[in-house]
């Protein structure tokens, strides 16, 4: 296989915890704690995990919307974390993001047309007439009436806004799009419209996706490979088909078994985990999952399990393997 489009190496993001009058740093929240993976051209990498697993922080750190603490993000032969100023802004044309909340992610003061035109203005692309034409074309492409360009965000429903958000991500013809819970805020019947749209656009524009979500059935539907995060660390990475049929990590197993299935006849063995996700400010020693793991051993409490390829293309961090 050719060089991957994106290579993330040992990415870390620690948020300082400040206390007291002098705002002294008393500790760190390890939101993302050493994540490494590659994304091939044209594939969709799903990233799943529960709240506090760092999936959203990770996505934003890759784009440097949040400044990562350490690590490398290689994209098209350049380490993004080394870029600054105009070269960083230039690189951002290649990678775009779609946010979860279609209400908060559009500027209420901008018309839809301006929201879509702005990226081109910022990068000084095209003539004004050409830009307007592109906006209309994009709106049509994401399934909206091109005349909507004149309207404002408050006139649209959540699903329509998310289409606008997707159009904005497409304006600069990026290679990679990070989708941060793009359908979580949408109604079930609208979710599927947006998922289908994303699939169509991927084919049409040769896009590569990183799809971050907590909804496992959605991630299974759209992803080629899936990365499971727990407490800012990687638990498992495998092809989507493999992961759902043959999950290796006890956490992945519990997670998959916990999803309610819309079939009253489905009889599945449910693994109910004890307790809550520990605080990332004070993660457990050893394997971060050992406090809730039904098969934890002594070694899990003391040693961090290594990240290993236990089967071809199937990676897991667990002492069982």
């Amino acid at each position, binding site marked *: 296989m050719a060089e991957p489009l994106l290579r993330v190496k040992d990415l870390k993001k620690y948020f300082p915890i400040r206390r007291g009058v002098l*705002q002294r740093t008393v500790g760190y929240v390890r939101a993302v704690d050493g994540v490494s993976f590659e994304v091939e051209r044209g594939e969709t990498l799903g990233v799943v995990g529960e709240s506090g697993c760092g999936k959203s922080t990770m996505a934003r750190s890759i784009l440097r*919307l949040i400044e990562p603490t350490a690590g490398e993000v290689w994209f098209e032969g350049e380490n993004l974390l080394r870029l600054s100023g105009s070269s960083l802004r230039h690189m951002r044309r290649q990678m775009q993001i779609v946010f979860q909340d279609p209400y908060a992610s559009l500027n209420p003061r901008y018309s839809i047309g301006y929201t879509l035109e702005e990226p081109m203005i910022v990068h000084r692309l095209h003539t004004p007439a050409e830009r307007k034409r592109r906006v209309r074309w994009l709106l049509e492409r994401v399934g909206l009436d091109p005349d909507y360009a*004149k309207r404002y965000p408050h006139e649209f429903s959540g699903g329509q806004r998310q289409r606008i958000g997707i159009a904005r991500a497409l304006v600069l013809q990026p290679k990679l799009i990070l989708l941060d819970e793009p359908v979580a805020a949408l109604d079930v019947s609208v979710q599927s419209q947006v998922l289908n749209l994303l699939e169509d656009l991927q084919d049409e524009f040769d896009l590569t996706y990183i799809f971050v979500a907590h909804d496992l059935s959605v991630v299974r539907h759209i992803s080629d490979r899936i990365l499971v995060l727990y407490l800012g660390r990687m638990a498992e990475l495998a092809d989507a088909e493999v992961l759902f049929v043959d999950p290796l990590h006890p956490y992945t197993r519990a997670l998959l078994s916990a999803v309610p299935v819309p079939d009253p006849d489905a009889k599945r063995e449910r693994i109910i985990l004890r307790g809550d996700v520990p605080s990332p400010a004070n993660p457990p020693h050893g394997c971060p999952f050992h406090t809730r793991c039904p098969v934890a051993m002594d070694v899990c409490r003391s040693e961090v399990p290594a990240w290993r390829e236990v089967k071809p293309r199937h990676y897991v961090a667990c002492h069982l393997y």
Partner: protein
Amino acid sequence: MSTVLPNGSLTQAAERKRGIGRALVKSIREYPMVYLGSFIVFVLIVVAVFAPWLAPYDPTKQFANGLTPDGMPVAPNHQFLLGTDDVGRDELSRLIYGSRVSLEVGIFATFISLVIGTTLGLISGYFGGVIDSVIMRLTDVVLAFPFLLLTMALVAVLQPSVTNVFIAIGVQGWGTMARVVRGQVLAVKSFEYVQAERAIGASTARILFRVILPNVLGPVIVLAALSVGFNILAEAGLSVLGIGVQPPTPSWGNMVSEGLLTYRFAPWMMWAPGTALLIAVLGFNLLGDGLRDIFDPRTTTHG
């Protein structure tokens, strides 16, 4: 609240203006106090601008018949509608010209606070960290310092004049503005559309001025309206103490001050400027409070 935009050849800007205009008309109907406040402010501005045409006489002219034979101010009559002062000048003319000073000080002082406060608030809120801490501590100092004491000191150093009075008032009024702007910036900054702006490669300056600033202006306008009222009072206070606007330039403050001395036998000399001050401050406060109600989504019935 959904505004239906007309389809047509209107430009986007015009469409937006129409939307805002219509909303404003609607709000005024819903908030009559704003209407009253704006009316008072409007009248005040008209009086100040057209003072030379509105005032019956020159405010500094001492009339021969402006004093009673025993040298007392003349009570209100046909010629002097509000009476005269202790040196025989027409009170009404002085009152009309005095509105210029009051407004000038009120507005310019507010403008100074606005520029300083908004700039510092924007920087403080957007960049955070050490910059934020330094600016906020500075704000604390300004807010904690006794207003009158500092103003008196400043005016004493700068020499009392209209310009120096509004500079002295303006350079300490920005504390609240900076805090309010900073709070707004922190709120707006967390919206994803600001992150989206960074994701498309927009520069910091663009984000600050084109995205964040318009979103913090609402509360700033409210504060500015309230602050004009406060600054008018501040000028009056300084002038009463004799360190504000100096005679013979008429200001409502120094008129009250003169009236104080003759209150027993010429009460109109204090009543006239006192009432004018009351109405002016009331006008700006009503306007500010009303605008706050309009801008605050929690007090609006339609979200």
